[in-house]
C-alpha cells in the first residue's frame, strides 16, 4: 500500500517529504532527471524517472498496489489523465489532482464518479485567495486556520512591543482579560514553537496562536486587547488569476480595491470583470505609481505577481512608504523563513497551501483533519472523544495528557467550548488537539488505541 506522487516540483517534493516522515511508502515520478536526483539524495522515497502519463511507467512504479495517486505536475492535463489512468486501469481507491485552470473548475461534474472520477481537486490559486481573505478578516493576524467546518478558528497573532501582556505569566491572563474566550495553544519564539503552560511568561515579538469560536472571533480578539479598525482600502499588485479573484471577492465585501498590472490587455480584462476596483497600468518598481496612488493611506498591500523577488522588493517599498500591513506571495518555499524576518507581515505560498490542503484531505479518516502550524514543527488534530478514552468524564486538569500537547477547543453539537481546567469532555465531543510534531506520535497512539473500539 503505497502512495504515488506524480510531479516532483515544490508541491510533490514537500508532500513526499511529509508523507515519508509519517512512515508512509512513497513513490515519486517526474520527467526531470535533476528533480529525481534531488529527491533521491534527500528523501527516503523511491524516485522513478519518466512521464506520469505513461501507463507502463505507472505500472513499474507499482500503481496496481497503490492506495493513492496524487498528481501535482505543472500540467493540468497530465494530472487529470494520470488520475484517469490510475482509476480505469488499476482501480486505485483515492485520486487527487492539482488543477489550476479555472476553466476546468467551472465544470465541476467533470471530476465526478461518472467522468474523470477524481476524489479531490486542488487549486492552489484558489486556496491562496481563500487564505488571504481569511487573513484580512482578522486584522493583524499572520495565520488564520479554521477547524470543524469553520466553527473554530485559530489565529496567529504577533505580540506587539508595547503590549501589556509582556512579562506576564499566562496564568494571569484570565485576570487581565476576564471575558476573553480565547486560549493560547502555542507560542512561537524565534524559530522555536512550544505549547505554553500556566507559568510561562510572554515576551515581546512572540507569535501567539489563539483558538476561539469563529463567529465570536472579532469580539474575542477585541476582548483580548487586539483592537484594530477593520480593513477598508486594499492595494493589489499583480492582476493574474489570484489578483483578479482576490479583487472580485474584496469588492463584494465593500472594500475599496486598487489593482496594479503591467500588461495593458490584461488590465482591460480585469476592468471588464471587476465592478468598482480601480485598475492601474504600470510598473510598481518605479515608485511614482505607488506615490501617485497614496500607498501610505492604504490599509493593506498585497503582492501577488508571478515573480517572487518582485513581490518581496515592492512589498518592502510599500512598507517604507508607510503602509501598515503587507502580504506577499512567495512561490519558492526556501525563501519563506527569510522573508518574515526582513519585515514582511504575512507570507503566503500557494504551494504550501496546496500541500497542507492535500494533507488535510488525506488524513480525513479516523483523525478528522490536520493542519500544519508554521515551520512544520507543530500540528493541529481534530478527533472524536470516545467513551473509552481517558479524556472523557473528568475535568481537564485531572487528565494525564502528553506533554507538549493541549486541547484547544471542543465542539459539542454546534456549540463551541474553549476549555479551561474545569471543563469536562463528554463522549462524542469533537476535540481539537494541538501538539508539537515530536509529541504527535504519543497523542496519536493514545487516540488510535481507543479508536479501534470505534
Amino acid at each position: 500500500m503505497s502512495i504515488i506522487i506524480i510531479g516532483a516540483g515544490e508541491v510533490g517534493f514537500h508532500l513526499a517529504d511529509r508523507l515519508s516522515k509519517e512512515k508512509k511508502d512513497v513513490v515519486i515520478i517526474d520527467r526531470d532527471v535533476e528533480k529525481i536526483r534531488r529527491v533521491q539524495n534527500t528523501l527516503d522515497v523511491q524516485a522513478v524517472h519518466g512521464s506520469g502519463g505513461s501507463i507502463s511507467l505507472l505500472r513499474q512504479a507499482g500503481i496496481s498496489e497503490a492506495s493513492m495517486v496524487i498528481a501535482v505536475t505543472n500540467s493540468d492535463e497530465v494530472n487529470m489523465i494520470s488520475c484517469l489512468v490510475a482509476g480505469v486501469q488499476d482501480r486505485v481507491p483515492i485520486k487527487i489532482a492539482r488543477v489550476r485552470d479555472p476553466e476546468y473548475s467551472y465544470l465541476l461534474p467533470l471530476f465526478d464518479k461518472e467522468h474523470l472520477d477524481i476524489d479531490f481537486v486542488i487549486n492552489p490559486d484558489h486556496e491562496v485567495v481563500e487564505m488571504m481573505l481569511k487573513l484580512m478578516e482578522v486584522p493583524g493576524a499572520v495565520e488564520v486556520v479554521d477547524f470543524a467546518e469553520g466553527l473554530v478558528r485559530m489565529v496567529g497573532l504577533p505580540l506587539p512591543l508595547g503590549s501589556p501582556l509582556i512579562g506576564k505569566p499566562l496564568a494571569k491572563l484570565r485576570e487581565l482579560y476576564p471575558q476573553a474566550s480565547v486560549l493560547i495553544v502555542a507560542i512561537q519564539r524565534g524559530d522555536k514553537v512550544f505549547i505554553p503552560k500556566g507559568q510561562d511568561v510572554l515576551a515581546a515579538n512572540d507569535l501567539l496562536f489563539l483558538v476561539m469560536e469563529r463567529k465570536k472571533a472579532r469580539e474575542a480578539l477585541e476582548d483580548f486587547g487586539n483592537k484594530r479598525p477593520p480593513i477598508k482600502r486594499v492595494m493589489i499588485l499583480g492582476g493574474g488569476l489570484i489578483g483578479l479573484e482576490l479583487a472580485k471577492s474584496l469588492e463584494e465585501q465593500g472594500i475599496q480595491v486598487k489593482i496594479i498590472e503591467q500588461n495593458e490587455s490584461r488590465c482591460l480584462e480585469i476592468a471588464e470583470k471587476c465592478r468598482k476596483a480601480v485598475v492601474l497600468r504600470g510598473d510598481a518598481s518605479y515608485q511614482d505609481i505607488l506615490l501617485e496612488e497614496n500607498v501610505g493611506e492604504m490599509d493593506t498591500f498585497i503582492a501577488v505577481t508571478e515573480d517572487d523577488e518582485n513581490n518581496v522588493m515592492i512589498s518592502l517599498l510599500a512598507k517604507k512608504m508607510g503602509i501598515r500591513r503587507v502580504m506577499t506571495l512567495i512561490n519558492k518555499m526556501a525563501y519563506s523563513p527569510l522573508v518574515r524576518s526582513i519585515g514582511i507581515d504575512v507570507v503566503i505560498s500557494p504551494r504550501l497551501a496546496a500541500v497542507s490542503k492535500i494533507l488535510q484531505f488525506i488524513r480525513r479518516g479516523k483523525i478528522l483533519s490536520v493542519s500544519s502550524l508554521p515551520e512544520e514543527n507543530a500540528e493541529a488534530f481534530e478527533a472524536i472523544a470516545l467513551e473509552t478514552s481517558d479524556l472523557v468524564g473528568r475535568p481537564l486538569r485531572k487528565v494525564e495528557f502528553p506533554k507538549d500537547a493541549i486541547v484547544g477547543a471542543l465542539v459539542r453539537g454546534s456549540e463551541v467550548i474553549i476549555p479551561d481546567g474545569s471543563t469536562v469532555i463528554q463522549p462524542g465531543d469533537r476535540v481539537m488537539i494541538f501538539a508539537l510534531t515530536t509529541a504527535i506520535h504519543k497523542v496519536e497512539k493514545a487516540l488510535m488505541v481507543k479508536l479501534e473500539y470505534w
Partner: protein
Amino acid sequence: MSFSTLFNLLGFLNLILAGSMGLPLLVNWIYGEPHARGFLLAIAATAFSGLFMMLIFRRSRRDLTHREGFAIVALGWISATFFGALPYLFTGSLASLTDACFEAASGFTTTGSTIFTEIQKHPYSVLFWRNLTQWLGGMGILLLSLAILPFLGVGGMQLYKAEVPGPTADKLRPRISQTARILWEVYILFSAAEVLTLLLGGMNLFDALCHTFSTMATGGFSPKNESIEFYRSPFLEYSITFFMFLAGANFALHYRFLKGNVKVLWRDTEFCFYTSVVLLATLFISLNLWLSIQKEFFQAFRLAIFQVVSILTTTGFATADFEQWPPFSQYLLLTLMFIGGCAGSTGGAIKCVRIYILLKQGFQELRKLIHPRAVLPVKLGGKVVSPDTLSGIWGLSFLYLFIFSMASLALCMLGSDFLTSVSAVAATLGNVGPGLGTVGPAENFAHLSVAAKWILMACMLLGRLEIYTLLVLLIPDFWKK
C-alpha cells in the same frame, strides 16, 4: 562532516561485528575446542570499543550528508578488517598482525586469497569465522545494518550507494530499509537453498555451511586445502557452479524473478551478457582442454564450467590446479578476472554492465566515423545511459586499470615475479582469490613480504568498494568544511 555521527555509527558496526563473533564461539563449544578464550577476548575488545564509541559520540539528528555516507562506508570496512582480524590473533591461528588483517580483509571483501598453508590443521571455529566474514561482507555489512536499523532513513541511501556495487543504485521498494531487507532476504533464501543442496550431495553440515557462506558471497574460502576438488563429486561441483552463477547475478533481478516476473531475466541486457560470457568462455576452455590435456570432453566441460563461473563471479574456488592448463585457458581466466559479476551482485571486478557499456560505446564511436552527424546515444535495455553514468563508468574503469598496473609494478619492485605480481593484483583487486604463478590455486599468499600483503589488502578494499568510495577519503577537500 559530523565526526560524532561518524564514530557513533562505526561503534554500532562494531557491535554487529561482535555479535557475529558469537557464532564461531558456538562452533568452538560444539566441537569442544580450546579457543573460547580467544573468541571471548575478541568479542570483548570489539564490543567494548563499539559501546565506548557509541556512548562518547552522539549521532546528530539530521540526515547523513553524502560525504558522511562515503566516510562511514570506507572507514567501516577498514575498521571491520582490523577488528575482524582479532579472532585470528587471539586464538593464535595467525601470529602476525599483517597476516591476520590480510585474512580478515580477504574475508570481508569476499576475495578468498589466503595466508593459511595447512587449512585443515586450523580449528573449526576459526575456519567458521573465516567463512562467516565472507558471508557478511558479500551482501554488505552496512546494508545489513540498514536492514535492521530503520532510523538511518535518507542517510541510508548514501550508504547504500557507496556500498552496493554497480554504476547506479536502484531502490526496489520506496524505503531504503525495505530495499536492504529484501536484498538480505533473497541472500538468506539462496543460502538456505544451497546448504540443503550441499547436504543432499553428501557434505557434512559444517562444510556445507562454510561453502555456502563463501559461494553466496562469491568469496572462495574453503575449509579444505584442495577446495572443492576435495569432494570429487560432480553433483556438488555442478550445484556449487549453479549457486555461484546466481550469486554473480543482480540480486534485484532475483527478487523480481522470485516475485513471479520470469521474463525479467532474459529482458535484462546485463544478465544476457553475463550468461553469454560464461557460455563462450566455457566452450573455448573445454575445447582447449579437450584438445590438450583431457581425453574426455565431458570431463573437460565439467572442469571448464566450474572454473569459468568461479573466476568470472570472482569466487575463486578450484576443482583443478588451472596453472597446469594450457596458456590459452590461463589467459582467458585472467581476462575473466577483470570482467567480474553483474552490478548489484556479490561479485567483484569491473562488472559486466560496465564492460558491456564500454564495448558498446567503443563501437558507437566507430559508427560515428561513418555517420559524422548521427546522434548515437549508448542504450542499455532500450534506455539511454545518461552522460553522467557514462563518465562515471569511464572514470572507474580507467582508475581500475591504473591501480592494477601501479600495484603490479609495486609488487614487481618488492621482488615477486612478473606472472605472480600481475595475477595477484588482478585477483585481489577483482576480489577473486587465487592468482597464477606462486599464488595459484594450489599455493597461498603466505610467502609474500609484509609490504606486498598490505598493498594487496588495499587492492581488495578498493575492489570491493569500487575504488571511489575509498579513494575519496584521500582527497584533502573531502575532509574540509
